[in-house]
């Protein structure tokens, strides 16, 4: 029985979820508020629509919790395939909005399958890796896991929506937790670090630094690993050179601009840098306690584009100040850490991997979004989970989270 099982659900997580969704709606109301239309039930208003999405989420939650937890494990492959086909279908039936064919238009509504594909991929990955025969130390199984992760990502890149695809990288974390060699993560970090450092300081400096570090390592360890370090050094320098090449020749000017602005190489407050600049002004002008709900001058003036979706956090910053922003940041951190703790106590490997995936995906969204809005990261357009306006996003994250809550609950009963 649903009610009887209710006590087994993880209420702290649900409570944080409710807090985030509520806070999100309050800020969407402010960001999309316009004094001309005060009618609360005007379905054309963004905040009214979001309220409808929230109500529908509540329905979704009831469904998700009502379904037997074994269903998710058993049908994960089917769900994954459905998701893949829905992504593929976009190339034939999709609707182009803002240059990306990421939506299906059904009646007056649009649905973005990539928001749901994350759930499917996390389920499929958990199912595959939790198989007793899978050993992540073998290259074959590693490759298969990576294919599960990157197949939908590639479809999404082709839409093209590289920001949403980037989130799939988060699923490396659960693999690492399940035994993937640390080398992959180190490799990822080194690649990212070299990439940013090359753009910031130039290939020559990076080459010198790489040689210096590896020289020290060689000097400190045994002579037999000289060849290994040599290869590493050549690889790093080669990568640095190729980054320059890719940056100058492969990436488009708009991508270059985004990096250059964040790296401070290019000062631009009008065109491409406008979003980031206005967002920083809005957040910065909030001060300690903010200007108060509906009192944000930047928000009212609609200075920050996309403020109800990707840039919703700038409204929080302006109207609720440092205190309010930190409240939201702490809610997210608490949620992610809570999910990690819950994952670790799961009996079944499937639940654990899935929980880890949920935490990783939420973390990526949270970090990339707030990093972008506060000017730490280049402009990568992905929503802030539970906060940003949008039905697909809200439902995608709700399903993602509540499937785990359902899994966790059944885990508890078995105990």
């Amino acid at each position: 029985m649903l009610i009887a099982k209710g006590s087994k659900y993880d209420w702290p997580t649900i409570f944080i979820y409710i807090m985030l969704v509520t806070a999100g709606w309050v800020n969407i109301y402010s960001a999309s508020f316009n004094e001309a239309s005060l009618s609360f039930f005007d379905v054309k208003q963004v905040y009214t629509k979001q309220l409808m999405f929230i109500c529908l989420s509540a329905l979704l939650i009831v469904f998700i919790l009502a379904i037997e937890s074994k269903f998710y494990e058993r049908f994960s492959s089917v769900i994954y395939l459905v998701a893949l086909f829905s992504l593929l279908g976009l190339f034939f039936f999709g609707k182009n909005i803002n240059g990306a064919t990421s939506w299906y238009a059904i009646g007056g509504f649009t649905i973005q399958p990539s928001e749901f594909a994350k759930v499917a991929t996390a389920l499929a990955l958990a199912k595959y890796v939790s198989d007793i025969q899978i050993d992540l130390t073998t290259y074959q199984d590693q490759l298969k896991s990576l294919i599960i992760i990157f197949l939908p990502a590639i479809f999404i890149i082709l839409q093209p929506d590289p920001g949403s695809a980037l989130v799939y990288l988060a699923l490396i974390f659960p693999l690492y937790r399940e035994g993937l060699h640390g080398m992959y993560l180190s490799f990822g970090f080194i690649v990212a670090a070299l990439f940013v450092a090359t753009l910031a300081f130039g290939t020559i400096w990076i080459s010198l630094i790489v040689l210096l570090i590896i020289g020290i390592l060689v000097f400190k360890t045994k002579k037999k690993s000289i060849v290994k370090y040599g290869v590493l050094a050549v690889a790093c320098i080669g990568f640095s050179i190729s980054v320059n090449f890719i940056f100058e020749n492969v990436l488009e000017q708009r991508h270059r601009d985004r990096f250059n602005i964040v790296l401070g190489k290019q000062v631009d407050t009008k065109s491409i840098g406008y979003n980031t600049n206005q967002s920083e002004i809005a957040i910065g002008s909030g001060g300690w306690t903010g200007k108060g709900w509906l009192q944000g001058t930047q928000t009212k003036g609609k200075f920050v584009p996309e403020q109800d979706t990707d840039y919703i956090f700038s409204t929080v910053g302006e109207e609720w100040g440092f205190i309010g922003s930190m409240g939201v940041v702490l809610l997210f951190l608490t949620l992610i850490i809570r999910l990690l703790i819950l994952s670790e106590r799961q009996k079944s490997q499937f639940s654990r991997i899935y929980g880890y995936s949920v935490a990783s995906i939420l973390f990526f969204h949270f970090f990339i979004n707030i990093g972008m809005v506060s000017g730490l990261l280049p402009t990568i357009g992905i929503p802030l989970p539970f906060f940003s306006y949008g039905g697909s996003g809200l439902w995608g994250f709700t399903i993602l989270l509540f499937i785990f809550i359902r899994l966790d609950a059944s885990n508890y009963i078995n105990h």
Partner: protein
Amino acid sequence: MRKYLFFLLVVFTGLIISARLFYLQVLDTSSQISSQNNAVKKVFDYPQRGFIFDRNGELLVSNQPSYDVMVIPKNVDSLTPDLKSEFCELLKITEEKYDKILKKAIIYSPRLPSVVVSQFTKDEYAFLSEKMWKYKGFYIQKRSLREYQVSNAANVFGYIAEVNKTIIDKNPYYQMGDLIGKAGVEMEYEEILRGKKGVKHLQMDRFNREIGSYQEGVFDTVPINGKDITLTIDSRLQEYGEKLLINKRGGIVALEPSTGEILALVSAPNYDPKILVGRERSKNFTKLWYDTISRPLFDRVLQGEYPPGSPFKTLTALIGMQEGVVQKNEKLICQGSYNYGGKKKLGCHLHKTPLNLSEGLANSCNTYFCKIYKRTIEKFSSPQEGIDNWRYHLASFGLGNYIGYDLPPGKKGLIPSSDFYNRWYQYPKYKWYASATISNAIGQGEVILTPMQMVNFTAAIANRGWYYKPHIIKKINSVDTIPSKYTNRYNTTIEKQYFEPVIEGMFEVYNEGTAKNIQIPGVEICGKTGTAENYTKIDGKRVQLTDHSIFVAFAPKENPKIAIAVIIENGYWGSRWAGRIAGLMIEKYLKGEITRTDMENFVLNGSLLEEYKKPYSGKPFKINY
């Protein structure tokens, strides 16, 4: 390790984000300023400027709507050649000018309004507004300008003009484009007339469009209308005075002695205040500004400094009696000149002798006043003390310093002090004595006064020993007080009893003496003519010009209603121009009509323009004929 890496990464990321937010929101305050700058706009709401009335309640200055054609370049559709030429014709500009204006507007801002052509009148507006719909992006904006109901008293009203950078830096109330009183009453009573502008804070969006009020208008203020003021000026008298001074240079100033209220303040040449409003303003103003020969913007009553000449003898007489160096009945001998020990004697004219004080005044005997002046100075052991004591008495009449009236321009005139002569004669290397300053006795020499100072001492004589500071403000409407310095009585250092013989002498001037030609039936005038020598420089040489014609007077003799000083530059002897004009003004004020039409015709038809051309003719010329 595998369990904790991700956990550590989450905590680490949380710290970075917190640090970034702390920096943006708490440490770095620059965003707060940028935010205010790009999201909130102040819009000012200008109040109606106060009206100006004359002492009889006649409206002199009001406001009129003026219409500026404005453009928002972004909204402009390019005009067809036909439409464009039609539009330019409407605006009364050439097509090249139109292109230039539009280009400038785009450079200023494509989204903000710029002025295309300013200050259309009501009639032009009516015509224009019917056709404006054809020209997209253009509209008409209403502004408030002065409307003058009379064509005189421009020097009293002053004018309003756009503030300049210096004023804005000094006074934060003003902003580019605001109007401020720049002269006259408009300047003196600027804060009362202008009121206080209101401000609205508007929330702007990112296209710099207004989207509503900022914080429901809690910071907004309502404009406070300017207060109306009533001047002491009698508009009809002012108008008449200006009429009398046509084709002459000089000034007329009339006071009500019992209150110090200025009844008329005429400076000639002058201009019609209406020419400084509207589209021709800057052209007309430039013309006035650069007329350095007749100087219409120069107020001869307030800024003109002249040797007072014989009217000053009244003061010499008063000081002499107060110091006890002469009795009113003491008769002094005049031998046709006064020998003070200089290279040549100080001449006098033919009259009976010996004379008492009143007779001395009536005949304007130079010898008489030189003698008593010398006694006044030599009463003291040193001429320095003597001069300073003399100066002390004169200062009590408001001479030698700013009087303190409520109009912006002013001059101190000069009543020399002992320091002045010490410097002049390089004392103590060279000594100087009373005789060296003897011209002061008859209002020549170093003494110079403005016509306003002349009328002030005349009013003090009329009052037998006291005066109110001359002022132009009669009432600030809805506030019943005027500044207290105009309701304080100032006493001179001369006792009341000494005024009667002087007034008697001034009456004799009119009755029997130098001004008997201006006699008006039924009016008892006390006056004193003056004929003042004056000089100019031509090619660096000091050249004497025809004397200034001066007259001071008050009337009636008992309970004086009007005191007046008139100076006509290069008008020759006192009663020739100044006396007649003063007489006409007095009759006009007291009786409201002119009986001496012969005298009126003489003045109205008389012109001194030929006289004024002499110094500029480049040829030798004769004076005083």
